């Protein structure tokens, strides 16, 4: 009997606490488990990465704290959460945001912001309602901008949850300025406002609760007695969604989905059943397969590469994708196809090499349990989905939370085309040529410019996702980049590359910070898709040009080692910088700008784009 045991044991681990909670996930245990994790964090014995979070709210949202602690711990994070007053104002922000939070959540209930738009809506002249609604959204926008002006935190704004019961009754829905329609319109308006602030996004709490059921998410008694309207179901879902939103800022976990064909992309076996015999369509047994195809094509449109690994005759697979009237997916949707009778794990590894995507960023979907287990064992990094059994609760790939990102860039939409162009380039390279002949044959053109607002989402994505050719591995979000691009002592340079096979999109960037006559290259990175094309030379040369123009006489390059960036440890040596400092593995080099710029190889043409320059 451990009745007199101390509240927590400093020798336990986060994993042990989570296992103890999962064994019997009651509210009492959750409270206790969260407190014990907080205790470990205070003692400094946990391995969780600590983030500061501030919640600007107008209702009792503190019960969310224990849920957030548990869900964050599963993701290797710890959130230290602080709360605003119940009537948050701009005056409060200085003190609230003083500790440079990493995440700011705005959780403002419409019910507590405006009784005129909620319980008292029917008292209004209909003509007055729109102005009231706009004023409420503007108040939130003022807070969002107030937060942005004070810190670089990622900002998540909760939208308005529709009520379960409506004072206007059935007539409410017929009224464009009724309770429900006004809240819906405000949610649309909120997105339009929030997206204008860098690093801010809307968390669709309304959709989340609607999916679960508004009744189940609402705690009427908690609302009456403690201004705490969220039920345990709502709190759990909200904590998960909040973490998902936070992780999405780092881009999707999976970059490529490899799918099986028979009984996955369609029902039946094409080699036996033939084109007319397989199940694929919008009704009957083929519906589930067509739904999966729609999900996959939408992932492709979001920038996730698709590939096929199937034991089949390649002509059969191509025939379905080309000729089946109900096939949503076409051959052009796939960046790679490995249709043969070889081992699937080998095929997945080959796809990874062909597309230059690590297996840790790949998912594999198959209906065959044996293949799933085989791939999981041979390639433990690959995320394996036994379809459709593994998809819970909605049966959608979205249940996996592997494909989240908060913005979709032009590069994302073009990504499959780029992967395919890359495969063509590889064919060219296989023809006998010297490396320089090959580079000349590509007819490389680099376009460079100083980053303006429209470039920042992609620059942020590059800093967050580039691991190998990244000299310092400094990750930036939109808000931090917006601050840098406004800083006259700093410059962000982007690089867009194309060759005769097509565009690679924006594949590199550099950030330089000037301190008197010294300019330091804070960030220099090039996407792994264009390694060996000398794009980095163009970036360094541009950073030198900008730094010289701003009056710097010395350009400093540095290398901060990470687990993945060993290949660039000697980059500045290779360019011709001279070593000035070695601090452990971190090193610095100098280039004398008074003697000129490093220059670029003659096989790459450089176009300097003046649009977007801030000078």
């Amino acid at each position: 009997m451990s009745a007199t045991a101390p509240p927590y044991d400093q020798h336990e681990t986060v994993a042990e606490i989570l296992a103890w909670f999962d064994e019997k996930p009651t509210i009492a245990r959750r409270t206790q488990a969260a407190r014990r994790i907080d205790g470990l964090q205070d003692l400094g014995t946990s391995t969780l990465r600590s983030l500061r979070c501030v919640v600007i709210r107008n209702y009792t949202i503190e019960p969310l704290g224990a849920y957030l602690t548990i869900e964050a711990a599963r993701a290797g994070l710890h959130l230290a959460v602080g709360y605003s007053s119940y009537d948050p104002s701009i005056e409060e922000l200085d003190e609230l945001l003083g500790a440079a939070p990493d995440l700011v959540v705005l959780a403002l209930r419409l019910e507590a912001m405006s009784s005129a738009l909620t319980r008292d809506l029917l008292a209004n002249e209909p003509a007055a309602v729109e102005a009231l609604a706009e004023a409420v959204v503007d108040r939130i926008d003022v807070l969002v901008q107030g937060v942005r002006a004070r810190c670089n935190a990622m900002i998540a704004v909760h939208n308005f949850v529709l009520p379960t019961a409506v004072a206007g009754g059935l007539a409410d829905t017929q009224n464009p300025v009724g309770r429900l329609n006004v809240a819906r319109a405000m949610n649309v308006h909120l997105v339009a406002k929030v997206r204008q602030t860098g690093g801010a996004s809307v968390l669709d709490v309304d959709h989340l609760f609607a999916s679960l059921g508004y009744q189940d998410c609402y705690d009427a008694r908690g609302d009456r007695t403690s201004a705490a309207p969220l039920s345990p179901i709502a709190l759990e879902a909200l904590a998960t969604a909040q973490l998902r939103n936070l992780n999405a800022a780092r881009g999707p976990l999976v970059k490529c989905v490899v799918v099986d064909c028979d009984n996955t992309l369609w029902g039946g076996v094409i080699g036996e059943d033939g084109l007319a015999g397989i199940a694929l369509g919008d009704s009957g047994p083929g519906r589930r397969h067509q739904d999966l195809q729609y999900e996959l094509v939408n992932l492709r449109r979001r920038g996730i590469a698709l590939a096929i690994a199937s034991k089949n005759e390649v002509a059969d697979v191509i025939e379905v994708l080309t000729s089946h009237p109900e096939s949503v997916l076409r051959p052009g949707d796939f960046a790679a196809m490995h249709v043969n009778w070889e081992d699937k794990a080998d095929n997945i590894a080959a796809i990874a090499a062909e597309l230059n995507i690590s297996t840790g960023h790949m998912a594999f979907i198959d209906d065959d349990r044996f293949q799933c287990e085989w791939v999981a064992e041979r390639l433990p990094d690959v995320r394996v989905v036994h379809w459709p059994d593994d998809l819970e609760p909605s049966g959608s790939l979205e249940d996996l939370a592997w494909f989240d990102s908060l913005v979709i860039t032009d590069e994302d939409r073009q990504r499959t085309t780029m992967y395919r162009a890359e495969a063509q380039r590889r064919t060219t390279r296989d023809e006998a040529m010297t490396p320089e002949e090959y580079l000349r044959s590509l007819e490389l053109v680099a376009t460079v410019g100083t980053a303006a607002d429209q470039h920042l989402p992609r620059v942020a994505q590059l800093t967050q996702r580039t691991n190998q050719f990244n000299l310092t591995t400094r990750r930036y979000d939109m808000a931090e980049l917006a601050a840098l691009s406004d800083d006259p002592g700093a410059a962000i340079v982007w690089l867009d590359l194309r060759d005769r096979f097509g565009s690679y999109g924006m594949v590199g960037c550099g950030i330089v910070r000037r301190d008197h006559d010294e300019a330091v290259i804070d960030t220099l990175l090039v996407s792994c898709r264009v390694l060996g094309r000398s794009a980095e030379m163009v970036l360094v040369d541009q950073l030198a040009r900008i730094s010289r123009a701003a009056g710097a006489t010395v350009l400093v390059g540095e290398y901060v080692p990470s687990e993945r960036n060993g290949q660039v440890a000697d980059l500045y040596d290779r360019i011709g910088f001279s070593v000035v400092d070695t601090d452990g593995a971190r090193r610095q080099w100098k280039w004398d700008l008074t003697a000129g710029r490093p220059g670029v190889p003659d096989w790459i043409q450089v176009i300097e784009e003046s649009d977007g320059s801030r000078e």
Partner: protein
Amino acid sequence: MAAVSEAVDGDVEGRIREVMAGVFELSPAEIGPQTSKDTVERWDSLQQLTLVISLEEEFGIQLSDEETASLLNYPLIVAVISDRIGTGVQ
């Protein structure tokens, strides 16, 4: 490693003590007739809320606003819960 042991099913007071211990960061043995909102430092309005939903979950009941408002010390909690589930009868 569990800091709190699980009470035997059916022991209503034991189960209440377990829940209270979890919510207020006490050991179950410390909880008795003297345990009240006035003697437990952590027993604020937020923990009151957690206590109510934890008790509801543990006993599979839904408490009314009046019952909720009366859960101010251990004897009252035992009385309210016993009343709702039938005294000591399991």
